[in-house]
């Protein structure tokens, strides 16, 4: 089976300012089907730029991007849009919800666009809103929600088309611990169902669900390895009480 994501010497240099900014500098990354990869690194290390390129939301400067064995960095914008509709879910750092649609419709729309029947799209919407404790916010407008609620809506929307690849950029930055728990539960389920996840995060609880951690620094991968899982122990063994 071909990797879900593969990049070859991927480079992004922003040239819109006075001086060019190299944001991603030669990244070789391969993600296998069903893998959950967390991406961490200091602010400005290129995390957002990298996942945006993987979702076709930012054009690469050089290098290759392959999704499911198909070269995609050469696709037109409309071809990218089609690909995203069918198999990619994207959670943005700043939500990007459609302002003049209700929360419920924001979640339902991607399922419809991906070709789900109205009945199935409605079911997806309801189960996702319930899983994220948002059912009673379904008829609200995004602007009426708190940051944490908007963030959960953004995650629900990204999952509505049951994407084979979920790309997320700090999807839990605004959550309190109760809501984080809901998000963690949903992400583990998505992972168990075999969907591939590539997620930028600073949240150790979220990152610890991943199979693998990729660390970025100055636009380069400085570490790429598995997160060890041990057999479950009792709290006394895990927590040193001194």
């Amino acid at each position, binding site marked *: 089976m071909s990797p879900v994501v593969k990049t070859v010497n991927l480079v992004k240099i922003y040239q819109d300012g006075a001086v060019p900014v190299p944001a991603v500098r030669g990244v070789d990354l391969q993600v296998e089907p069903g893998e959950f990869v967390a991406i961490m690194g*200091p602010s400005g290390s290129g995390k957002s730029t990298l996942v945006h390129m993987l979702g076709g939301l930012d054009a690469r400067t050089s290098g290759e991007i392959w999704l499911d064995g198909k070269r995609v960095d050469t696709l037109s914008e409309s071809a990218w849009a089609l690909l995203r509709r069918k198999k990619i879910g994207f959670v943005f750092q700043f939500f990007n919800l459609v302002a003049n649609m209700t929360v419920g419709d924001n979640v339902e729309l991607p399922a419809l666009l991906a070709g789900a029947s109205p009945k199935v799209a409605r079911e997806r919407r309801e189960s996702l809103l319930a899983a994220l404790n948002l059912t009673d916010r379904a008829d609200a407008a995004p602007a009426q929600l708190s940051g944490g609620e908007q963030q959960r809506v953004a995650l629900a929307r990204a999952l509505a088309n049951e994407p084979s690849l979920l790309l997320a950029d700090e999807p839990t930055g605004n959550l309190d611990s109760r809501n984080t728990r809901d998000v963690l539960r949903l992400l583990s389920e998505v992972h168990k169902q075999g969907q591939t996840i590539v997620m930028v995060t600073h949240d150790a*609880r979220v990152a*610890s669900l991943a199979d693998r951690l990729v660390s970025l620094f100055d636009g380069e991968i400085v*570490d790429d390895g598995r997160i*060890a899982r041990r057999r479950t122990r*009792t*709290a006394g063994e895990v*927590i040193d009480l001194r």
Partner: protein
Amino acid sequence: MRPHLLALLAKEPAHGYELKQALEQTFGSAYPSPNIGQIYVTLGRLEKDGLVRAVDVEQSNRPNKKVYYLTAKGRESLEAWVDEPTEGPRVRDEFFMKLVLAPLTGIADRMALISRQRRHYLSLMSDLNDLLSSTAPTDRVAMLLIEGAMLHLQADLDWLERCQEDLA
């Protein structure tokens, strides 16, 4: 463990095994199940220091058991423990010592140390996640202890990133 046993004895006199059970009941799965031998050793030291005293209680068909109770000096020591401010967060961190000193040895570079430590923290966090999901929500003490450990770990991870930005 000394002040913990004193606190339990302030409530009522007890023998060693009862103290073990009381610790287990109070802290649930959050506390490493205390070793009975360690409890007796600690009680012996407390007795020698005059903080507790023991009386022999006869039992019909078993050897006598020692029931411990708190002395006035023991109560003072317990009160001092409760009143004094508790040690703050760690300032001398073993990993930090490695991070600062390792490059001098030529054995490992800082970037590699930071990366390895980051993955280690995440694997600890994954243990805590498992623990949290296997702990009954009614076990408030255990839940709070796990949440506390998670918050500390998050802070360690954030600090690691600061070290990476400034040292690596």
